[in-house]
């Protein structure tokens, strides 16, 4: 980025993490604080929107304060205040948006509303400060599965998305079915380490056609298999299910790179924290001669550093977001 560096405070409250971070110029993370609410939602087997919204209100002051202290930055040192304004849970988004606008009002710094999906794509740039578009990105989480061609900063083409369940949703549902608890992604990842990923040939939905995804049939296949084979090893089921999801995700990401002629691939979102996905993608992208960026786990799951990172680019390109704007739960990327 050129010009005077921008120091941005980012706030993220779109789902079940309350987060704040300070990032310089979209690349240099001074602090990144994440208060996870996973414990609050665990007994319900998924994120409960009303509980998430309430927890954000309780946590927001401390998370902001800690992000400033850890960065060694005062409010007056900030050049912009950013928050996720969509997509996400309506009641949850409002907390971060309200907090950011209040800080913007006090400091006089511009407010920047950020698209959560876009932020997941920028997380890789916090890991690799030399990374620049064009690049092919896969954003996979409990809420979304998106394959996006990033032609430049702020310039996106959605190449594929899920037609039913998100990848992370499939992990959660299968984990719940197998009695592995919530959140499902880390639980399956852990159990799968002890299992044989080739034990059960679960279907690879829509593997051959296009760049869209479908995961609900795979979940059904797991359920049917367990009903027919009640004595099957849970570790083998978890490993085989995970292998099927990873196969589909990696195959389509690499196919997207091939079809767009892009030579860089990156991943983001909670599912990008999956160890099998990371290993497989690194191997295959290397073999295909592609540059691949697999950000550390803390940058894959929801965080505010990625929000602050996007905001620096958006502010320079588009200017501030008006203070009379709200949240858009179904905000689209492009």
């Amino acid at each position, binding site marked *: 980025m050129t010009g005077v560096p921008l120091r941005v405070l980012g706030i993220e409250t779109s789902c079940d993490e309350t987060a704040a971070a300070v990032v310089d110029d979209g690349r240099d993370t001074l602090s990144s604080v994440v208060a996870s609410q996973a414990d609050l939602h665990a*007994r*319900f087997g998924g994120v*409960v929107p*009303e*509980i998430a*919204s*309430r927890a*954000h*209100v*309780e946590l*927001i*002051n*401390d998370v*902001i*304060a800690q992000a400033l202290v850890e960065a060694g930055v005062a*409010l007056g040192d900030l050049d912009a205040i950013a928050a996720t304004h969509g997509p996400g849970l*309506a*009641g949850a988004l*409002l*907390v971060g*948006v*309200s*907090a950011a*606008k*209040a*800080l*913007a*009002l*006090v*400091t006089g710094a511009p407010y920047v509303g950020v698209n959560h999906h876009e932020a997941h794509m920028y997380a890789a740039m916090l890991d690799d400060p030399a990374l620049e578009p064009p690049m092919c990105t896969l954003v996979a989480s409990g809420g979304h599965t998106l394959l996006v061609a990033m032609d430049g900063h702020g310039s996106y083409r959605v190449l594929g998305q899920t037609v039913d369940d998100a990848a992370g949703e499939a992990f959660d549902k299968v984990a719940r079915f197998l009695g592995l608890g919530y959140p499902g992604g880390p639980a399956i990842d852990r159990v799968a380490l002890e299992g044989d990923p080739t034990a059960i040939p679960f279907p690879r939905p829509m593997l051959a056609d296009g760049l869209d995804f479908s995961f609900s049939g795979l979940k059904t296949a797991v359920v049917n298999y367990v009903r027919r084979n009640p004595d099957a090893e849970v570790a083998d089921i978890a490993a085989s299910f995970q292998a099927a999801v990873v196969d589909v995700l990696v195959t389509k990401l690499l196919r997207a790179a091939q079809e767009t002629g892009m030579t860089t691939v990156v991943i983001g979102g909670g599912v990008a924290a999956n160890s099998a996905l990371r290993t497989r993608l690194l191997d295959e992208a290397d073999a295909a001669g592609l540059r691949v960026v697999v950000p550390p786990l803390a940058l894959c799951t929801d965080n505010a550093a990625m929000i602050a990172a996007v905001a620096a680019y958006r502010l320079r390109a588009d200017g501030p977001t008006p*203070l*009379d*704007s*709200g*949240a858009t739960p179904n905000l689209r990327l492009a």
Partner: protein
Amino acid sequence: MQLLAIDTSTRRVGVALGDASGVQALLAIGGPCDEGPPRHAEELVPAIDHLVRRSGGGLDRISAIAVSIGPGMFTGLRVGVTTAKVLGQALRVPLIPIVSLDLLAYPLHYAGSLVVPVMDARRHEVYYALYQPVPGGIQRIGNYEMGAVEDVTAELAARGQEALVCGDGALRFASAFADLDRVDLAGSSHGTPSLAALVELAVARYEREEFVAPADVVPLYLRRSDAELAWDHREP
């Protein structure tokens, strides 16, 4: 001493500046019975900005923030309470949280009868509380409650006292209260929590230094989430 006062417990977005002499300026957007998506997140911060600018001061002159914490509309409460909490944190001033039902009851303390604020809680339920006149003011009897409209009418019928019912719930369910003997409806000017009451009650607490740190202020929901309610009634 200058107070910023915020009430977003109904569909109305209300902001006021005031001090020991009362309200200096106020801005209210929307009515309690408006339809359409709520606009608290869009309207509140610009309203505060406008009010502060027009009154010729800056935010740095504010010495405390009074905020209506509910009960009321969840979306509104989250916007209002979060905004107040973060403004308080950034300005390094304390918060004075006040219950919305108190703000509905207080302006009617001259009524000389029971005062019963009733707020729409949706699903044919209401938030309410009963207040009785005492020398120099009004005093709540019993808890802040959530219940069916019929719970309130039954309680009033059983008491048989003169009562004045106010709030957006009174407007919405006017016909249920109109049938009761000795019960009057306060009318639409008492449909939303009073910003003047918010300033007046907060000034009194300010003088008694009844402050709360921004991080410790939470909305008063009175209703738990459906997931928690279902959890308590799950099959064993």
